[in-house]
């Protein structure tokens, strides 16, 4: 059962990065879009993301609940030592979620929009940035349970060039996912060309940010190269992701939106796989080498069993409903015009 739980945890994190990431990306893209195109971009994004917006963010909660129920020691260690970036991320989540709804549901569209919109776009940037920092700090052995003073216990546990670089990389991935996603949502040729161009540029930005992560790792003496290329599955994953980039350029030029989305999803999955496979079953690396492992720091048997059953039964309800939701909203509007 423990493996069922781990698969759910991993999948929840992946789906949060993919769906939530595309969602954050929407805000980031809005930030980087020129004034002239802004409102069009926003409309397209909103139509695409609106209905599934609420559900996208449930993946994070599922992941957190799995952690605190099944792996309490891991949850509490991260909560204690990464308190500050977690709070920053939470502020981002609050600001973004509320600003998104406020700007779409305010009955009067007036100057308040000038307040909501910047909050929305900047928090779209901040949230994935700190998410990246948290992930990087967890796996890079910066957390020091023996630290005596405030700075080394609660600040240098996460403040490093490596973490910052991973934060930036995460932001770029979100932007990338959103541009790929939006291509399939536009129908006007001019818009399409605009977004295809944008997608190409973001691919280069992502590669640049990825390189930045390696540079930062080098300066922080983190053997990132060895982690990722050290064992065969990780290496294969990275090679597969790189090769699929070539296919992606083909798909971009040939206008194949579904293939594009699949490819983007595939690439991010491979990156997450390579990044997590190398340490598995360890998930949080500590400075003193006493790593926290999903296998040795799991809860008692009955807890894991009931958690596993709860997840399995839950997914029986959730997955079909979610698929049907997405399917319904890809169909044309106005199927029932009388029913306004």
């Amino acid at each position: 059962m423990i493996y069922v739980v781990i698969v759910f945890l991993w999948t929840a994190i992946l789906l949060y990065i993919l769906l939530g990431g595309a969602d954050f990306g929407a805000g980031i893209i809005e930030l980087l879009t020129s004034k002239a195109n802004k409102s069009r971009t926003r409309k397209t994004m909103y139509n695409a993301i609106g209905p599934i917006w609420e559900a996208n963010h449930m993946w994070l909660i599922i992941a957190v609940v799995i952690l605190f129920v099944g792996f309490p020691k891991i949850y509490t260690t991260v909560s204690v030592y990464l308190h500050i970036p977690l709070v920053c991320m939470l502020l981002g989540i609050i600001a973004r979620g509320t600003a998104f709804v406020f700007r779409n549901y305010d009955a009067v569209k007036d100057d308040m929009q000038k307040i909501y919109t910047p909050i929305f776009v900047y928090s779209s940037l901040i949230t994935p940035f700190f998410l990246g920092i948290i992930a990087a700090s967890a796996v890079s052995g910066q957390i020091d349970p023996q630290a005596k003073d405030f700075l080394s216990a609660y600040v240098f546990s996460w403040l490093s060039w490596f973490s910052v670089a991973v934060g930036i990389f995460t932001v770029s991935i979100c932007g990338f996912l959103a541009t790929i996603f939006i291509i399939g949502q536009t129908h006007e040729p001019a818009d399409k060309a605009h977004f295809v161009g944008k997608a190409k540029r973001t691919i280069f930005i992502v590669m640049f940010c990825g390189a930045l992560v390696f540079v930062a790792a080098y300066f922080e003496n983190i053997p990132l190269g060895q982690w990722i290329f050290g064992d065969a599955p990780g290496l294969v994953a990275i090679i597969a992701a790189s090769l699929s980039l070539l296919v992606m350029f083909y798909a971009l030029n040939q206008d194949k939106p579904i293939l594009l989305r699949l490819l983007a999803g595939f690439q991010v999955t491979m990156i997450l796989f390579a990044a997590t496979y190398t340490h598995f079953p360890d998930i949080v690396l500590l400075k003193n080498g006493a790593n926290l492992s999903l296998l040795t720091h799991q809860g008692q048997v009955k807890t894991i069993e009931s958690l596993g059953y709860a997840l399995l039964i839950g997914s029986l309800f959730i997955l079909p409903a979610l698929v049907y939701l997405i399917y319904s909203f890809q169909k044309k509007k106005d199927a029932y015009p009388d029913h306004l």
Partner: protein
Amino acid sequence: MDDFLAARLQMAFSLGFHIVFACIGMVMPFFMTVAHFFWLRTKNVVYRDVTKAWSKGVAIFFATGAVSGTVLSFELGLLWPKFMEHAGPIFGMPFSLEGTAFFIEAIALGFYLYGWNRIHPWFHWATGVVVGISGLLSGILVVAANAWMNSPAGFDYVNGQYLNIDPIKAMFNEAWFSQSLHMCVAAFVSTGFAVAGVHALMIYRGSNIAFHSKAFKIAAIFGTVAACLQPLSGDISAKDVAKRQPEKLAAMEAHFHTERFAPLIIGGIPDTANQTVNYAIKIPGLLSFMATGDFNGEVKGLDQVPKQDQPPVAVTHYAFQIMVGLGMAMVLLALLYFIALWKKKQWLKSKWLLKLFIVATPMGFIALEAGWTVTEVGRQPWIIRGVMRTAEAVTPMPGIAYSFYLFTAVYISLSIIVSLLLYRQITMVGKLYDSSAEPLKK
């Protein structure tokens, strides 16, 4: 500010904030689907307008509830790591089931909000019902988790170790039923009165009467029926507390000395040093009857509890008085409303009844917050009653006071924006919805 106090206050503010949005998110879908049902049945456009106006409100509240809930799931670890380390695997069952309930709720809400004219009308309506039911279910589950903190079950506590964990037993602890029942009814009372009050105000001001009267009636009926059930459920809770947490009951009642034929103490100022209550109204024997069902039953007082295990008396006592007082006031208003509905139709048009409802707008929510204060403060100094003290559970990180100021500022600004948005939704009703006010439409 002391870090421990800051952590407690931050937790209390976050929960106190979340609970308002959670209740509305839980109950409004029911109001909405009732209005929606009438629209589908009668094709009276006013019902459609009410449904649409409410669904916008639900979207705002749902999102705010969702983000504040997300914050809570992290806050439990950020503020109380020692608690979560041990409690997580034990009381986690309801949380993991709740995840499913939330998910279904979020999906159904996606269908509901964006489904107008895209999906079959009755399927659309049904998704609204699903939003309500799954919201209620998640409320029940999360309260079951809180109930476990009051009456821990499903594990053996041996030499500081938590052994033989049984999450199912932990979920169905002794307090889950009375607390969840009382909470669900409370959600209907508070949302019902709040929504009815707002629409009563608009009727009072004479704007868009057709729209607001229909909205008022739906909310008022839900609220008043629930208000009459609440004392019954509260009585179950009180008997339950008397059995499982006598020290909490004693603090609620400022009942210092164990006695038979114990009086019910109403109001008054508890004096902990001298162990008396000044200026209170005492009704002889009633407390014994309420707690045990027998006027001569023995009610344990605080003298039975070691000093270091006693909850704060004053806060618990005042909070309890506020809850019960407001609860009774709402029952009276509910009875007036029923008389008006059945016997005195002319009252329904009278200004005084509307005024009473306007005054009652915040009562339910005040009672709700007071009730939670009773439950949580009455459990102190324990975070898991009899097992772990709150002070042991707090995070080792210094400087929580700053995080408390930060979150307080965020919650205050959010409350202001949400109020502004709501105010706008309501004042725009005439322009956006009220079809009777639009002669241009054929």
